[in-house]
């Protein structure tokens, strides 16, 4: 009787302990641990696919006294994304952290972070979520500062402080909910919640705190420097997974806890912030001088797109249309996760090969690093939302929802965002072409280039063509 939910948290945790205790064999243990963690995570997804939602009670007490782990389609989908992205990043890291000292620090923190991610995605308890948030935050900060450069440490210190402010605010909301409803379980709280000042205050506090962590405009100021200065594999995981985790939590709360009390105005506000993020983030990405900074700003915009779904979800009655929107939201989040991870990994390679990542001086990258340039192009396709990427389908459904609910103004935002995204992606790509000589081979360093390429390829092709699997995983409708 193996509890796959508990395993998805404990296996990476044990891997972290092993690599901490046995620093001599960190690389081998790291690879084994990564594979094992990915496997147990995917096992959860497969089980959700087969049997629907899973729930388990560590301690055997059950809610409300004990706490529970839970996996539904939403968490299973993100869990699978985290597993695949993190596995690719792990492989990349074996090639990236070659020298001793940093490698030694990377792996334990990396597994703790992975464990925190899985724990967060599976948690069904509001306080447990706080603990996972903190674990995630501390490990992310420590990893982000791993280059040891001044800017990286300073940016991540700010990230830490802001994150703590966010999680404290979140916790205050939890306390108010506990005071009013006497339970911490997500499902029970959601069932008990009644419209009123307490619930509204908790909604504002928790969403606000998490918005800080998810870098929702205008609470995003900490993200670009922190993400742009971290080592490439860490930037990848920060942008692809860590920010997404905070966003997931907002979504989870709005759906399962505050579902009954969310007003159109609140959802509209979130949508408005998202719209501002789309435009501001894309604009800053276009103006960014460095490739990694561009990628970081683009993350802001992508989170903005996800926020645009809230007013539409709010305005759409239960039914297939709402299910489509929800699945499209998840699809966009996942596609962006893969694409952004691929982009950051590729940016790391460019930085490594050129010695810098200033966009204006990247001439010839298309010739030196064809596979990496290809990765950037594929990831860019997803960021723009061009077919056949997953985000194309996501955007299609998003715009369908906007027209169907009569909120056509979001279309303009998406239009501007898409064109800006095209501009910033192709700004990089057009710099990459010059008259430098021909490369001998497509791939130059397999252990780092192939994972990045696979991530980007997944986002740009596989997720688009295989999108219907997500509907099936989330248990939505019968796919014809």
């Amino acid at each position, binding site marked *: 009787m193996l509890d796959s939910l508990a395993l998805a948290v404990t296996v990476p945790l044990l891997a972290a302990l092993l690599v901490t205790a046995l620093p001599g064999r960190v690389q081998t243990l790291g690879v084994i641990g990564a594979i094992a963690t990915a496997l147990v995570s995917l096992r959860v997804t497969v089980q959700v696919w087969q049997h629907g939602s899973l729930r388990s009670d560590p301690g055997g007490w059950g809610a409300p006294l004990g706490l529970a782990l839970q996996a539904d389609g939403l968490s299973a989908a993100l869990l699978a994304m985290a597993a695949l992205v993190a596995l690719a990043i792990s492989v990349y890291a074996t090639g990236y952290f070659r020298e001793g000292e940093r490698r030694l620090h990377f792996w334990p923190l990396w597994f703790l972070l992975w464990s925190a991610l899985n724990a967060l995605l599976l948690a069904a308890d509001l306080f447990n979520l706080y603990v996972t948030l903190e674990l995630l935050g501390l490990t992310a900060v420590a990893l982000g500062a791993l280059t040891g450069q*001044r800017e990286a440490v*300073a940016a991540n*210190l*700010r990230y830490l402080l802001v994150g703590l402010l966010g999680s404290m605010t979140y916790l205050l909301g939890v306390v108010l909910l506990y005071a009013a409803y006497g339970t911490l379980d997500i499902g029970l709280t959601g069932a008990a919640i009644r419209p009123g000042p307490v619930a509204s205050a908790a909604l504002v506090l928790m969403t606000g705190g998490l918005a800080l962590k998810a870098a929702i405009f205008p609470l995003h*100021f*900490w993200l670009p420097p922190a993400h742009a200065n971290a080592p490439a594999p860490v930037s990848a995981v920060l942008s692809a997974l860590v920010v997404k985790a905070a966003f997931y939590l907002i979504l989870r709360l709005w759906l399962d806890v505050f579902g009954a009390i969310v007003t159109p105005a609140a959802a509209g506000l979130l949508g408005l912030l998202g719209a501002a993020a789309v435009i501001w983030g894309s604009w800053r990405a276009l103006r960014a001088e460095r490739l990694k900074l561009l990628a970081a700003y683009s993350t802001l915009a992508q989170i903005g797109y996800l926020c645009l779904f809230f007013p539409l979800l709010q305005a759409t009655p239960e039914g297939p249309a709402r299910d489509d929107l929800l699945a499209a939201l998840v699809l966009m989040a996942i596609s962006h996760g893969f694409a952004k991870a691929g982009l950051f990994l590729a940016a790391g390679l460019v930085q490594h090969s050129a010695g810098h990542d200033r966009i204006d001086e990247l001439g010839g990258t298309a010739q030196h690093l064809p596979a990496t340039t290809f990765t950037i192009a594929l990831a860019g396709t997803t960021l723009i939302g061009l077919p056949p990427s997953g985000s194309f389908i996501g955007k299609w459904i998003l715009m369908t929802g906007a027209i169907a609910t009569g909120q056509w103004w979001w279309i303009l935002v998406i239009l501007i965002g898409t064109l800006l995204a095209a501009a910033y992606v192709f700004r990089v790509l057009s710099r990459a072409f010059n008259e430098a000589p021909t490369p001998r081979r497509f791939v130059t360093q397999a252990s780092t280039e192939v994972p990045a390429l696979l991530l980007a390829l997944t986002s740009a092709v596989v997720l688009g063509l295989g999108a219907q699997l997500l509907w099936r995983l989330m248990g939505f409708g019968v796919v014809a």
Partner: protein
Amino acid sequence: MTLLLFLFDLVLLSTLLVLAIAALTSPEPRRAVMFFIAFGLWLALVWARLGAPDVALAEAAIGAGLGGALMLAAARRAARRQREGKADQDDDQKSS
């Protein structure tokens, strides 16, 4: 009796708040930390009064004790740096 208790609570809490304000507003780092430690210990006292001895113990040992010790070390460094005239750089990395 209840009035007395109420007054007692009032004094307890106002002291707590005063200590917190002192910790938050005193510009000299070491003094701020000292106030913070005092605040933590006082908080432990209040919690003991509220029937939470376990937590009071932990707050005294971990929150006020270890947290305070960590901050004290930082404050001492800050004070030393202030003496050595490096304080001007002290703030730039924390500005938002």
